[in-house]
């Protein structure tokens, strides 16, 4: 029996007068990987940026509707608190270039001015790097700046950084589109492994990736949720014609 952790209700998102998400109703299940799938411009990045309230930082951006995390309306509390509960990994790996690997992992705490003891910090750094599969590769170099890492390693560092905040939900915005196939498969394995400890929402336009890692898929087209269901079922027997057309490559 699936547990709903995030409820998106009647969500409409705008950039000025342009509506980019139309009446989205979606439920995200706990400890599962849900993929937001669709072609460019379908609103998938906008959707997750609404979840962690990054969307509203763009000039002229606003929403209508509700997003509830475990029943709590995310738009009724301080954005900072929302972002501490919801972690995000971006398309282009973006570790902080002026910080060491160690500091990058606990950056969330440093930025918020939260004081931790050395033991606490060491523990969080090690745990997060182990969870993101990067520990063995960097444990000797924790106090170097992260710029010497490869793209895939930098991305895993960003995942560790997000995980260090112990988020309820992890949002991944096309996390492997800038990476080579080897790095991509490492991260895909990681995503499957991570769902045991954190609910994951993955944005991608890569059908193969969605098929490989996700339990559920939500297919979006031009700002609307077209279909939602178990990935295996949707990919074999799509209910909507649009979904089918996308899956076979006719559109997108």
């Amino acid at each position, binding site marked *: 029996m699936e547990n709903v952790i995030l409820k998106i209700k009647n969500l409409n998102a705008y950039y000025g007068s342009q509506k980019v998400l139309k009446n989205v109703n979606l439920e995200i299940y706990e400890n599962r990987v849900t993929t937001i799938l669709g072609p460019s411009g379908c609103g998938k990045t906008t959707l997750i940026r609404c979840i962690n309230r990054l969307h509203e930082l763009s000039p002229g951006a606003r929403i209508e509707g509700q997003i509830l995390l475990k029943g709590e309306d995310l738009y009724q509390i*301080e954005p*900072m*608190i929302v972002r*501490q509960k919801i972690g995000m990994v971006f398309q282009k790996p973006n570790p902080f270039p002026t910080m060491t690997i160690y500091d990058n992992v606990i950056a969330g705490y440093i930025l*918020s*001015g*939260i004081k931790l003891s050395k033991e606490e910090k060491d523990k969080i750094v090690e745990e997060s790097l182990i969870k993101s599969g990067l520990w063995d590769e960097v444990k000797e170099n924790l106090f170097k700046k992260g710029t010497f890492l490869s793209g895939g390693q930098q991305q895993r560092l960003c995942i560790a950084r997000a995980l260090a905040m112990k988020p309820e939900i992890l949002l991944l915005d096309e996390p492997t589109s800038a990476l080579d196939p080897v790095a991509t498969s490492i991260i895909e394995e990681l995503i499957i492994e991570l769902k045991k400890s954190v609910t994951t929402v993955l944005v991608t336009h890569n059908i193969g990736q969605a098929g490989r890692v996700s339990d559920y898929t939500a297919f979006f087209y031009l700002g609307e949720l077209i279909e939602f269901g178990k990935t295996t079922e949707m990919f074999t027997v799509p209910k909507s014609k649009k979904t089918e057309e996308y899956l076979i490559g006719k559109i997108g």
Partner: protein
Amino acid sequence: MNEKTIKRRIFNNKLYKIFVFLFSFLSIIPLFLIIYFVLIRGLKYVNLKFIFSMPKPMGEIGGGIFNAIVGSFIIVGVAALIAIPIGIIVGIFLSEYKEKKYTEIVKILVDTLQGIPSIVIGIIAYLWIVKPLKQFSAISGSIALSFIMLPLVIKSTEEVLNLIPIEIKEAAYAMGVPYHRIVLKILLPSGSVGILTGTLIGISRILGETAPLLFTAFGNQFLNLNLLKPMSTIPYLIYVYATSPYKDWHNQAFAASTILIIIVLSINLFGRFMEKKWKM
């Protein structure tokens, strides 16, 4: 992560914005203070008589600054005549020969020239021209000012030429146009707005320069049109009058400053306005 720390962080964020806003606005207040006080005290003395008559002897009240106005025009004009052609040629050189080691060195030297304090430039013009001629002269002042204007013309020429897409040059080459014609008839005209901008900003800069004139052009209470003799200029006059003990001269210093600041800031603004157009 409790309530109190969140509130404190939000408060600090607001405080930071207020601080930045406040200090930014405080920074531009001097601009208005200076313009206001200069105009308030100087504008009432500015009239046609002031502009077109000659100074009275020291200590006497009245008179005008005609010699200084003429002197400024001549000295700045000659300086521009020297700096503009040389500046354009060097600018072309820097743009056409980029990436070469020699060019890198010249670029650094142009930057160095720009950073030299203007009083040191005055010393150089003194050593090179005043000393041999054994007298102060307008031409030595012009040369000093041209050194100051030169880097500005060079840099804006180089910048504007660098913006011209290489395809235009290649198309001209392909048509068999000789190199010197490509530069003179195609590249330069394309970059003319940028070069003009650099020139205007350079002129507004040297119109206000005083230090290099202190021992080159020196000053002259009479109207002088001879480049080989000392010549008065507006900023020099302002300096001498302001630091003198005579109240009437103080008032004239403010009046002259009113004229100078209006001219200089107008040219500066106009040059900036044009610069935005071609930098886009």
